[in-house]
């Protein structure tokens, strides 16, 4: 289940970065993948749609969102949390 979630998140991020999924690792940062603020907002939308969750992200103050969007690993971790919350 969690592998599946990770693969789905990576696929969404790879599509946004116009890269092959093999080029996106858990250590990748959005900056290293060349995803700008608008790309990030589009990626968040795609993730929300894919998992039917709401990600509390405000582009004005990303640090205050309580949702770490800096690396692929952090995003996967956060999505896991939101999906678990939804199931609970």
């Amino acid at each position, binding site marked *: 289940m969690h592998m599946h979630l990770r693969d789905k998140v990576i696929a969404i991020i790879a599509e946004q970065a116009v890269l092959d999924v093999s080029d996106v690792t858990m250590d990748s940062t959005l900056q290293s993948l060349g995803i700008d*603020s*608008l790309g990030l*907002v589009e990626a*968040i*939308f795609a993730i929300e749609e894919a998992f039917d969750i*709401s990600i509390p992200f*405000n*582009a*004005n*103050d990303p640090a205050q969102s309580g949702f770490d969007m800096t690396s692929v690993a952090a995003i996967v971790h956060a999505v896991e949390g939101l999906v678990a919350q939804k199931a609970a």
Partner: protein
Amino acid sequence: MRRVVITGAGTVNALAHDVPGTLAAMRAGRCGIGPLDIADVDRLSVRIGGQVRGWDAAAHLDRAALSGADRFAQFALVAAAQAMRESGLAVGDGTDCGVVLGTAGGGLITQDDSYRAVYAEGKSRVHPLTVPKLMQNAGASHVSMAHGIRGPVFTVSTACASSNHAMGLAFQMIRAGALRAVLTGGSEAMLCFGGIKAWEGLRVMSARACRPFSRTRDGMVQGEGAAVFVFEEREAALARGARILAEVVGFAMTSDAGDLVAPSVDGAARAMAGALADAGLAPGEVGYINAHGTGTAANDRTEAAAIAQVFGAAAPPVSSTKAMHGHLIGGTGAVELLACLMALRDGILAPTIGHEEADPDFALDVVPNTARAARVEVALSNAFAFGGLNAVLALRRG
């Protein structure tokens, strides 16, 4: 070259339904932003806005205008009538006068209501005047009909810079000798479920308050309303003994040709410097800047850097009145021009309310929270739009 003056002003916005009430609210630093009263608000994550309260269109408009005018056009009609009344302008046969108004969304509420009816409520028909109500030029057309203005009449739509582009074109047409007078400004009524929902997607809206230039700012808050002015050729205005509210002396527009949404220091700075050059003014002559000041992280940082680039360490006081009336999108520059008129005529700088603490990233005097007395000879009004479009007006005491 001919000179251009403002001889009348009118407005409807979250602070008041007229100019005196709006200026009194700006002097008092009153906030017109509050809980949104619209359909399906419970399905929005942003539930505040600068909504026009107690709007009774029937008190201002006849039956034909009522059934054919979307809320954005109603605001434009009422603001224009106020401006014409104050100006006392006689349009004659109307052929040497124009109407140039800005709007971004046009009849967005008409669209939203119609889509709700056919998609959500399963109805199979919508109001017969849906198309003429939602068209972007409806506001300008209604105003032309109400006042018999038969020269150039059109709408400018450049997102958040619409009003400034509109007023800039009005200024240029009069200055060039093409027209005697133009009713110009802008209007917007985007506070509906679809309008807010679309903005939510960008994740730049605050759910709490608009705090321009404050370190604690976390986004913009939308407003609605209109402001319309009578721009008039100066000699004609003086000859008929009109009261001069201010002179329009410069205008410049630039494009970033960069990012669809991220603002640019260079584009904003070139627009401010361009407006000064157009007016033949030095930066040191400017006594007040009405900022675009949306309260987003990106705009305020970029705008502050652009101001520093043009004015150096000696930047004049800068304030954003959006914290009071919200961001009127295509109508915003028009309502904000009222703050420039107040600075030039009354010697009062409207404050940037909601200011909690200075942002260490820039050193601007943002007239925090409380209005201030100051003698201002020249004021600038900034507007910077998505799509990278920048439009700045320069005004001088009349």
